[in-house]
C-alpha cells in the first residue's frame, strides 16, 4: 500500500479534529475524500504532509512511518501536497513558482524535462511564464499550483479542493488534468466538496463527517449512497 493511515487522531487545542481515522491509497489509484465543511478533510491532509502533529495513530508512506517527520522530508519521499487556496508565491513569476516546486531535486536534466511537460500540458502557463503568479486568473493559478506540485516528481499527490473558487467551465477542465496526472503513474488523493467532480475521476472513496469516516469503498457505492446524496449533492 502506498499510503496507509491507521487510527489517526488529531486535536486542535482541546477540540478533536479527527478521531480514529483509517484509510488507504493504493499505488496508481485515484482516491477521493469527500465531506462537508469542517469535516476534517484539510486537517487529514495537513497531518499527512507534516504541517500538524497527530495525537495518536500513524501514517505510513511507502512503508515508512511519516508522522513526526518535517514537511520537507515528506516532500522528498514523494508525498506532495497542493494546498487549499493554492498558496502560490504571488510576487514571483510563474516560472519561479514552478522551479520552486523542484526545490529538493538536483537532477537538472529531469527537472528541465518535467518543466517542458508542464508547459506542454498547460500551454497557457508557458505564455504567462514571466508574469507574476498573483496576477493570473483563478483557473490559471490552479494550473500553476498543479504544475508546481508535479515539478516535485511526486509519487502521491494530495489535492485539496482544486475546484474551490473556479468557474464551472474551469472545474470541468480539472477532470482531464487529474486523469493525465494519474496516467503518468502518479497516485492522487483528491479532497473535494464538489462531489460530482470527485466521483467522476476517483475509483475509491472515503466520506468524512465531523472527524470520522462514515463511508468507504468502491466509488460505485458512493454514487448510489443516500448519505452522499443527501449530504453533499443536495438531492
Amino acid at each position, binding site marked *: 500500500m502506498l499510503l496507509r493511515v491507521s487510527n489517526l487522531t488529531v486535536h486542535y487545542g482541546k477540540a478533536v479534529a479527527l478521531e480514529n481515522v483509517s484509510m488507504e491509497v493504493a499505488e496508481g489509484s485515484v482516491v477521493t475524500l469527500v465531506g462537508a465543511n469542517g469535516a476534517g478533510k484539510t486537517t487529514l491532509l495537513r497531518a499527512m504532509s507534516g*504541517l500538524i502533529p497527530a495525537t495518536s495513530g500513524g501514517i505510513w508512506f511507502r512503508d515508512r512511518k511519516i508522522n513526526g517527520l*518535517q514537511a*520537507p522530508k515528506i516532500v522528498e519521499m514523494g508525498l506532495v501536497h497542493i494546498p487549499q487556496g493554492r498558496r502560490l*508565491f*504571488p510576487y*514571483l513569476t510563474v516560472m*519561479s513558482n514552478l522551479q520552486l*516546486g523542484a526545490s529538493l531535486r538536483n537532477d537538472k536534466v529531469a527537472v528541465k524535462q518535467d518543466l517542458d511537460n508542464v508547459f506542454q500540458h498547460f500551454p497557457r502557463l508557458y505564455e504567462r511564464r514571466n508574469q507574476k503568479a498573483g496576477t493570473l486568473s483563478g483557473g490559471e493559478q490552479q494550473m500553476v499550483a498543479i504544475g508546481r506540485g508535479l515539478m516535485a516528481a511526486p509519487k502521491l499527490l494530495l489535492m485539496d479542493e482544486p475546484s474551490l473558487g473556479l468557474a464551472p467551465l474551469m472545474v470541468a477542465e480539472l477532470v482531464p488534468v487529474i486523469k493525465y496526472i494519474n496516467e503518468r503513474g502518479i497516485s492522487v488523493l483528491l479532497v473535494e466538496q464538489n462531489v460530482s467532480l470527485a466521483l467522476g475521476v476517483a475509483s475509491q472513496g472515503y466520506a468524512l463527517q465531523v472527524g470520522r469516516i462514515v463511508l468507504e469503498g468502491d466509488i460505485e457505492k458512493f454514487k448510489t449512497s443516500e448519505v452522499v446524496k443527501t449530504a453533499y449533492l443536495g438531492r
Partner: protein
Amino acid sequence: MNMILTSTVNGLVLSAIYILVALGFGLQLSIMGIFNFAHGAVYMIGAYVTYGLSVALGLNQWVSLLISVILVGASGLLLEKFCFRPFQSKPTHMIVMAIALIMILETAVEVTLGGVTRALPAFVPGIFKAGSISVDNERVLAFAIGAVLLAALTFLIQKTKIGQQMLAVAQDAEGAALQGIDTHRIAATATVIACATAALSGSLMATIFSMNPFMGDNILLKAIQVVILSGIGSIGGVLVGGLIMGFLNAFLPVLINASVGEVITILIVLGILLIRPKGLFGYELF
C-alpha cells in the same frame, strides 16, 4: 559649491550604509516576520570587533574587518536558533527579546570598554582627487564596498536558487515548506547575511565618523524608517528609500541644523506614508 559636493558625497555614503543595514533588517522582517530591533546593536558589535582586533591586538585592519564580518555573521546562526526561532509567532515576546539583546550588548561594551567615543583608523588613509574634486578615501571606499555588496545581494536574492527560496518563504512560509524548502535554514541564512552586512557597515561607518556603544541606536532608527518608507519586502524600494534618507541626512544638517534635520526627515517620511500608506513601493518590486 564645495558644500554641495561634500554633502552629495556624504549622501551617497550614508545611503549605501542605510540601504545595507535596512536590507538586513527588512530580510529578517519579511522572512521570519520579526522586528529585530537588536540589528543596530549587531552593527555596533561589528565595529567594536574590528576595533578590538586591529587597534587592541594589532592585527592588519583588513584582516580584522574580515574576521569581524565572519564572526558576527556566524553569530547570526545562534541568534536565529536561540533568540528568534522560539519567538517567531509571538511578536510581543520578540520585542522584549530584542530589547534585552540591545541592553546586553550595549551594556557589555560600555562596562568592559567604557562609553567613550573612539575612532577606527582609516582603511586607506589619504585623499582621493579627481580634477577639482577631493574626497577622503574612506568615503569613496565605503561607497564602493556598499555598492558592490548591494549588487551582490541583489543578484543573490533575485537570480539564485537560495534567493528565490528566501523570497518564497517571505511570501508564504507554509507554501514554501510544502515545496520541500527548509524554512529554518532559510531564516538562518537571512540572519547570517543580515549580521555580516551589519558588521561590515558598522566598521566602515566607524572609520568615517566615530564609534561608541550606542552608535547602533541611530542607525536602527534610520533602517526602520527606510524599510517603512520603501514598503516592506521590496529591494528596489529599499534602494530608493535609502537614497532619500541618505540625502536628507546629508543635506538637512548642513542646510538647517542636525536636530531640526532629524525632525524634518521624520516629517517627510510621515508625509509620504500619508499619501502612500503601504510605502513607496508596497510589495511589488521584490
